[in-house]
């Protein structure tokens, strides 16, 4: 991400901001059973990775400190629950050992597709899980909009050619169709996706 040239004034402002951020995280977490100073330092290091972006989004370091501390607490609690294997079901394996048969998020609800990835995300101390989930949802909605009007076979063809890089002639041989036929079909699918993209850009919506 582009950043403006470093100046002494900007560095000074960043340092003041980082100090206030550290102090606010300690204020919020002082009564929690965790090392508030360590968590605050991790938040400061995260902040210094993109200081200008965060300073523009949160002009008040105290406000960012409260948000970051809340996320750190949520991640800490989730990580502790995962480490305590809360919610995990244990199954007796064929060799007699007991192991988690499937990872669950809570109670007896089985993890949906991508559940393992979600649990790993929640275990990261500096990741804003909420933001990440929103971003992922936005990307999924956008992809769904681009594929609107296409059949499942069309989507699969497009993924094979443009996603996985299969040559059209090789794919045509495997599918038992002429190369020209497959090529025309791919072109039609691409035009359809481009139309959906144009419509999405003009209307600014990702939902059907």
């Amino acid at each position, binding site marked *: 991400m582009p950043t403006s040239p470093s100046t002494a004034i900007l560095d000074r402002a960043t340092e003041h901001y980082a100090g206030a951020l550290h102090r606010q995280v300690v204020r919020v977490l002082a009564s929690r059973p965790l090392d508030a100073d360590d968590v*605050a330092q991790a938040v400061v290091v995260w902040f210094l990775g993109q200081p200008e972006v965060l300073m523009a989004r949160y002009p008040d370091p105290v406000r960012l400190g409260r948000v970051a501390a809340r996320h750190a607490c949520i991640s800490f609690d989730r990580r502790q629950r995962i480490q305590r294997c809360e919610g995990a079901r244990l199954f007796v394996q064929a060799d007699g050992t007991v192991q988690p048969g499937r990872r669950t998020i809570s109670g007896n609800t089985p993890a949906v597709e991508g559940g393992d990835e979600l649990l790993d995300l929640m275990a990261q101390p500096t990741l804003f899980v909420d933001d990440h989930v929103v971003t992922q949802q936005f990307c999924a909605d956008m992809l769904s909009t681009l594929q609107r009007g296409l059949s499942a076979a069309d989507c699969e063809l497009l993924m094979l050619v443009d996603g996985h890089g299969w040559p059209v002639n090789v794919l045509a041989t495997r599918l038992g169709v002429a190369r020209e036929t497959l090529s025309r079909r791919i072109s039609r699918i691409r035009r359809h996706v481009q139309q959906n993209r144009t419509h999405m850009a003009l209307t600014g919506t990702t939902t059907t």
Partner: protein
Amino acid sequence: MRSSHASTAQVRLRYRPASDVLSGDIELGMLAAGDPVTHSPDADTHLTWFPVLGDDEALAGFHLLHASAQAAHGRLDALPVPLARLIPHLIERGLAALPADGTTLQRADVRVDATISVPVGQLARPSPTGHPPAEWSVEPADIARTVESLTTLAHTLGAAAHRFPAAHQPPTIALAAAVRELASVIQRSTGRTAPGTAAAARAALSRHLPFAPHERNELLAALTDVDDTQSWPAVWALVDDLCASLQHSRALG
């Protein structure tokens, strides 16, 4: 049973000079009996007490924000005497360890540690009669008015910094940041004062700033009065006058 007064506890101190935060962790071991109780006499001091055998409560941990400013103003009385004696030396060592030409990340990473043994008896919580009760009867409107005044002052200082000569910009930015933090902390502290943050603002004021003597005195008085919630109406008046004065002073062009 061994008396807890005769036992010693290991006290680990950590000081981060870049953020001016001092943390302490006391290992009470088997002496601790019960659940910890966290007490915050103000927004910049957080103390954790553990019930111990033979005593009422003993200090188990603490966080002191704006530690150097609080130490400079003699505000370490909330901590046990052995720690209060050591802390100024630790702060001095931490400030000396800050690299003058390092990056912000390098400076933020600087940390100094110290470990001492303190008799548990000296970590005991003072009796409640020794401390006046904290002032909690602040009206939300008073808090909002104080925050508004301080926020306006921070904005005025921030806008003024760009018009000052280059040599005066860093201390003005530091003062504006301290006042802004003071306003935000008071806004979110439900009527508690923030003496450490106010002390840091006063320390920032003592640096070279292009203010007239009467402006400096008024600001110093306001940043002193803000430590007492009873004096907040006087703070509004002082700060509002000062903002008007700063906006029309020759220093701001």
